[in-house]
């Protein structure tokens, strides 16, 4: 069987909500999906063995995300959102299923190739920032470039540029504890973007921020998405999800719904989000 042919250009905004459609993307025998599909998962599983009791955090997730899409992932606490993000970000290893990133089958990659993928293809923004506390903003943003083998001078130039893009050009030598929460998250965003990743992943990026700062961070993501950056973001806030163009809701480790923003917005006006 040939690689899936998926040039429904007019349907770019339409999520793939039916199993049939997802099958069309991945193909039933699991060939490499087409190039415009940045993320494709099939039957993705993640279980935790808690001393005999198996916690099934993800129970087979089929997901396909196109280049340039801006996707929000929602769902109640414990539904597996972070677990899914970590798998998509190659920070964790699935127990089952397949995952293609940019047409590459990630779930069979070696350790070093995974490091390369994390370095080049993925920018990850964490709820808790995860900056190195003893390094300056500039040094933090330089890190991915260090592991990419970029020479020092160019590294500094590109990291400075990335920080300027998030309005932190004047805070290069500040350490994380000398920055506000919003500024820290912007450093983390600059770090995630400095290597021009294929996808920007954010797990509750505003979870630790007050509402004003959250708005400010959301505008950064909004701008990025509008310039064509692929963004996948986990959030609890329906109004934050409302910024995205597609909303996926997880429940008990499976996808409960996958809708365009308009459908989602219409639905949450008539019923609570979860």
């Amino acid at each position, binding site marked *: 069987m040939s690689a899936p042919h998926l040039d429904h250009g007019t349907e770019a905004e339409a999520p793939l909500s039916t199993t049939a459609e997802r099958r069309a993307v991945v193909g039933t025998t699991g060939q490499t999906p087409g190039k415009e599909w940045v993320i494709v998962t099939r039957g993705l599983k993640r279980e935790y063995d808690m001393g005999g009791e198996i916690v099934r955090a993800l129970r087979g997730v089929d997901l396909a995300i196109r280049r340039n899409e801006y996707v929000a992932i929602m769902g109640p606490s414990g539904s597996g959102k972070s677990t899914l993000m970590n798998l998509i970000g190659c*920070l964790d290893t699935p127990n089952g299923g397949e995952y293609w990133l940019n047409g590459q089958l990630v779930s069979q990659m070696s350790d*070093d190739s995974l490091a390369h993928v*994390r370095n080049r293809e993925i920018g990850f923004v964490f709820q808790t920032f995860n900056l190195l506390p003893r390094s300056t903003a500039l040094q933090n943003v330089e890190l991915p470039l260090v592991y990419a083998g970029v020479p020092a001078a160019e590294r500094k130039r590109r990291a400075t540029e990335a920080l300027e893009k998030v309005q932190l050009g004047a805070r290069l030598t500040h350490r994380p504890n000398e920055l506000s929460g919003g500024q820290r998250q912007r450093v983390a965003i600059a770090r995630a973007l400095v290597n021009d990743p294929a996808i920007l992943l954010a797990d509750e990026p505003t979870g630790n921020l007050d509402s004003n700062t959250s708005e400010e961070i959301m505008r950064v993501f909004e701008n990025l998405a509008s310039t064509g950056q692929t963004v996948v973001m986990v959030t609890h806030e329906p109004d934050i999800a409302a910024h995205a163009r597609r909303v996926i809701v997880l429940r008990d480790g499976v996808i409960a719904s996958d809708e365009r923003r308009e459908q989602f917005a219409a639905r949450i006006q008539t019923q609570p989000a979860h």
Partner: protein
Amino acid sequence: MPILEAVRLALTQLRVQKLKSFFTLLGVTIGVMFLIAVVSVVNGMARYVEQDFAGKFLGVNTFSLRKTPDINMGEMTEAQWKALQRRPPITAEDAYAVREALPAGARWAIQDLRWVNPTTRYVAGGPQVVAQAVTTDLFRIKDLAVQRGRLFNEQEAAIGSAVVVIGQAVAEEYFPGLDPIGRTLEMDRVPFEVIGVLEKQGSVFGLNLDRQVFGPFLSPMRRVTNARVNLYGVVVQGQNPAEQAVLQEVVRETMRRRHKLRPGQADDFALESSQSALTQWMSIKKYLVLAGVVLPAIGLVVGAIVIMNIMLVAVAERTREIGVRKSLGARRRDILAQFLAESTTLSVLGAALGVALGVGLARVVAMATPLPTGVALWSVWVSVGLGAGVGIVSGAYPASRAARLDPISALRQE
């Protein structure tokens, strides 16, 4: 990640984690320092005994035929001592017979000596000196050379000229402020012309080797030393230890024949070599060297355990950092390189410091004691190797465990 990057990162970490760095450094430094210092002290003792004592005093690859052994390290009963005294003397005829028996290439010399009180016109009295009546090869056997003047030649030796070569201390004490060459030194009222002053030799076991006077065996010096009663020694030198052993058997056979000893009868003379005098020392030295290496090595191992623990804690504290780095694309070997660079930088710094302190300590011991402590190069290599090895392994092990984690497991650890 390039190695320079790793080292730069390491130095930053060291500055940040001062306490951890200090203890790692301390462990390696102290271990290295003691290893070097103790080995150099033991080495100094060995050099003192083996070179100064054995070399200067007895000669290299040399043995002496004597009536009784000169150096006695063991206990002796009254009866044993009396038996030794009843032995036949060593005579000049014995010495010449030995020379006849020796193969070509072996060195041979007569050495007779006695403590005397010399006199000169320039001072009233002075310390006793060792007067020696010797044949010319003794200078070569004992590696003696003149600083001024000359040694006596074969002709002077043959006709028995009353000339002497004196040690530095004799020159200073009996010819103060004067050039002794050409001046007269009297012993037992016999005048001798000084023709040479020997190079400085220092002292061995409190015996000042510069307080000696050497004259030709056939000269009146022979009367000064009472050579007729018994010769102090007939000295024989081979080119190497193996040859020495062969020569020793030649001399033994010669003397047994001359003394008409039957097989089974014990020797009634002594063949004394640096080895025979040193066997006792050697048996002690083994333990000293062992202790000198083992004790500091134990120190290093204890240091290693401390460092390992510190590194384990440090790595645990930094597992989050490892997670962050891995999430940004660090490979396992990048993490490993980072921690290796850190512990290597620390250990090498500590080892270098330990070398400096160890050499310093050895110097202090050399100044405060008569031991000529020599820093053994091998001890520097061994201790640096051990110290650096300890630091590197103890740093690498915890890091290699942490580097194996999934980024998310590392990030989750508190």
